[in-house]
Structure formats: C-alpha cells, structure tokens
C-alpha cells in the first residue's frame, strides 16, 4: 500500500510534544541510588525486590496453570459429553469474571466460606497475598491454557490417536505419550504469550497488597515524588523481561521441535 500523506507531519508534532511536554517537572535520575524509606536499601533495590516478587508469583502460578490447564484441556477433548461440559464450564467461569474481582474473591471471600479455623489460619499467614495471588493467577491462566491445549489436541490428525490405540496403548497412555507431547509443541507460541500475560497480570495483585514491581514503582513514586523516573524504570524492566522471555521461548521451540513437523500457532488468544 502506498504511503499515506500526512503521517510525517503528525510524527513531527509528536516528537515536538515529547521535547516540550514536561515543564515544571524536576527530573532526578540519580534517585535510584538514594536510600528508600522501606528499609530495603536504595530505590534500585526496592525495584529489584519488586521484580523478584513479580517473577516468583508469575513462575509459581505458571506451573500451576500448566498442570491444571493440561488436565482441563484434555478433559475438553474427551469423548464423554459431561466431561466436555465440565471443562467448558470451568473455562467460562474463569474467563468471564474480571481478574481484579477474582483476586478479591480469593482474598476476601474464600477465607469466609471455608470452615472458620481454616479461614483464620489462611488470613494469618505471613505471605497471604502472595499465596492468594498465585492461586488466583494459576486458576485464571489455567482456563486460558486449557483452551490452547484442547485446540492443540484438536489440530492433531485423528490418525495419531488411532495409531496410539492401535499399538495397544490405553487412552490415557495415548494422551500421555502421543497426543499431549505433540500438542504442547504446537501451542508453544500462544503459551509464550500466555506466560507474558501472567507476568503482566501479576501486577493486579498489588490490589491485595503484594509488593511486586508495579507496586514498588508506585510506592517509590509516593515516597520520592519522582513519578516519571519510577514508572520509566518499571516500564524498562517489563520490556527487558518480555524480550528475555520471548528469546528463551524461541530457543525452547527450536530445542523441542520434532524434525519434519512444521510447527504453527493455533487458536489466537484475545485479551491480555
């Protein structure tokens, strides 16, 4: 398509805007080396510990999401009609409630619905917000992984399942040794974006008091009044994490690729 006229002008204006935008704001990039009031060390250390919490939450929840997602995704492809209905209900339940509300449900509502003693024990745990965030993100993402897993299994030729059972494997064995290993290879690209999503979504846990990266940037802004430095740093860290994850997953894709089998993404996932 030919180049639309007028865009260059728009960009010149945007660049101008960037240069003049911030007038009475006092930039202070050395803020990162100053001591922060939260006692961790410098503001840099504050953000670093935020990143560690973000990654710890995302990785733990990701393991949970992969396991649960594989199970539910498999159930959705089973011959039993009721099993499929259960799988679909599971997916719809976690997909149609905002993540923020799910956080609140796990944090405020769940401890009240279980027996009082267990609820009190949960509420008194030192890392309650971390555990809640992992549970919430794990279940939330598992429903999205499940959709990908069933799409991956569905995209396999029917002959693979028949070949498996013809070789004398039971149905669970066919899933375990034939279908799931292939399906997971096929859905690696959408799983990559789900993993990136779980890292980003962990920031919602700041509403229940988890001091992850975004929360740390926010607290840095509150203590130091250096709004834009704090958020710029957090943004840069998120970008670096993204790039690292994307490249690691590309390596993994190459490593696990089955020779002679063209791997392509399936079922594009909307949302974030």
């Amino acid at each position: 398509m030919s180049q639309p006229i007028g865009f260059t002008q728009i960009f010149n204006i945007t660049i101008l805007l960037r240069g003049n935008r911030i007038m009475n704001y006092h930039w202070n990039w050395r803020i990162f080396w100053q001591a922060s009031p939260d006692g961790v060390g410098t503001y840099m250390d504050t953000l670093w510990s935020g990143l560690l919490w973000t990654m710890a939450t995302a990785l733990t929840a990701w393991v949970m999401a992969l396991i649960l997602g594989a199970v539910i995704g498999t159930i959705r492809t089973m011959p039993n009609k009721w099993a499929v209905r259960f799988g679909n209900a599971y997916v719809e339940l976690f997909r149609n409630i905002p993540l923020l509300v799910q956080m609140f449900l796990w944090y405020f509502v769940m401890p009240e619905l279980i027996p009082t003693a267990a609820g009190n024990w949960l509420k008194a745990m030192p890392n309650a917000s971390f555990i809640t965030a992992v549970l919430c993100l794990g279940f939330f993402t598992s429903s999205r992984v499940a959709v990908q897993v069933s799409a991956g299994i569905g995209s396999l030729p029917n002959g693979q399942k028949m070949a498996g059972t013809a070789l004398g494997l039971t149905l669970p064995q066919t899933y375990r040794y034939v279908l799931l290993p292939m399906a997971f290879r096929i859905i690696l690209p959408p799983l990559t974006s789900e993993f990136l999503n779980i890292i980003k979504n962990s920031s919602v846990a700041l509403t229940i008091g988890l001091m992850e990266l975004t929360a740390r940037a926010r607290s840095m802004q509150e203590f130091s009044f250096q709004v834009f430095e704090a958020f710029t740093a957090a943004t840069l860290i998120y970008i670096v994490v993204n790039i690292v994850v994307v490249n690691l997953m590309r390596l993994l894709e190459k490593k696990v690729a089955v020779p002679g089998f063209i791997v392509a993404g399936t079922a594009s996932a909307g949302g974030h």
Partner: protein
Amino acid sequence: MFGNFDFDVIQRSWVYLFTTGMTFTLQLTLFAMIGGVFLGTILAMMRLSSSKPVSLVATGYVNLVRSMPLVLVIFWFYFLVPYIGAWLIGAKEPIKVGAFSSSLITFILFEAAYYCEIMRAGIQSIPRGQVSAGYALGMSYWQTMSNIVLPQAFRNMIPVLLTQTIVLFQDVSLVYVLSITDFVGAASKVAQRDGRLVEMYLFVALVYFVLCFGLSLLVKKLQQRVAIIR
C-alpha cells in the same frame, strides 16, 4: 454456610451500584471501544505502510504498550495526562483532569494497541488484488482503504473486535487502583462501609459473569451470521 451473611445489603445498594458504578463502567467501555478501534485502525494502516519509519513507529508503539501491564499504564497516564493537557492548552501548571477523561484517554491508547493487531489481521485478510483493482480504477490510497478494504476488514473482524471489547469491559474494573467509582469501585465502597465484603464481591462476580457470558454467546451467534461465504 451463608448463615452469617446478610444479602439485604445488595437490595439496599443495587440502585447505587448500577446508576453510579455500572453507568461509569459501560460509558467508559463504549467510548474506549470507539476511540480504540479508530486509533487501532490507523495504527494498523501505519504498521502495514510501505514507509519504514511510519511502520516502525506504529510497531514500536504497539510492542511497547503490549509489554506493559495495564495497571502500570493506568498509573502512567494518571500522572502524565495533566502535563500533556497543560502543554496542549499552553498552561504553566499541570491541569486538573477528571477521573473519566483521564481513564478514557488511558483505555483508548492502551486498547488501540490490541485493536491494531486485530485490524491488521483484518486488513491482511483482504486479497491484495482488491487493492490493486482499486488503484487501477484510479482511486487514491484513502479511497481504496475506506471504500474497499476497511469495510470488509471490519466485517471479517467484528466477532474478534467484540470479544476484545468484552475483555475491555472486564479491564475497566482496574480503574479501581485510582479509587474511581466504577462498578467494582462502587461495590467496594459499599462493602467497606457496611462490612459486607463477601456478599458484595460475590454479587459483583455474578453480575460480571452473567453479562460477559451472555455477550460472548451473542458474539458466537453473530459470528455465524456475518461470516462471508466464499
């Protein structure tokens, strides 16, 4: 199990929840969708432009926004918009921007990146021959886009655009971090005032579930109807 709970709180507050909270949420969703699709379409056209700088700028913007968590973007614009506004009208001090306009700008700019990817797929789903045919008839770039490519791209992508809008509708709840009274914010205010967190959050979850599930069923129906038979 629900012995200690008092579900009357919902009866007492539902008018407030829907007139104040849900109205805000729905208005924000609707305007952010219109703005986001518009800006997203322009971004998609820029990404597909043959000019390297133009497509680089759009690609950079989309990748930047897509690698940031929405909560962080909401914080960014909450602090940034007053400065941008001051620059636009030439004021010396950062201007005061209302909660609605501030979050509307945030969601338009954020969702545009996601709508852009959808519209890009939509534009690419139209055979290139149609663009050439447009040029052969003497149409300009804008005439070809607005008369031939975009109407078909929109039609092909309506189900995906609407699915993304359901995601947007859920995402709007995150304005809670700015203490704005959207549906979740209203419910949480009542919940904290009356000490009825369990009842209120269960009710909020139920309302969201019914709305989003119903809408997604409608989108599925629509998907079958708008599909162009080739």
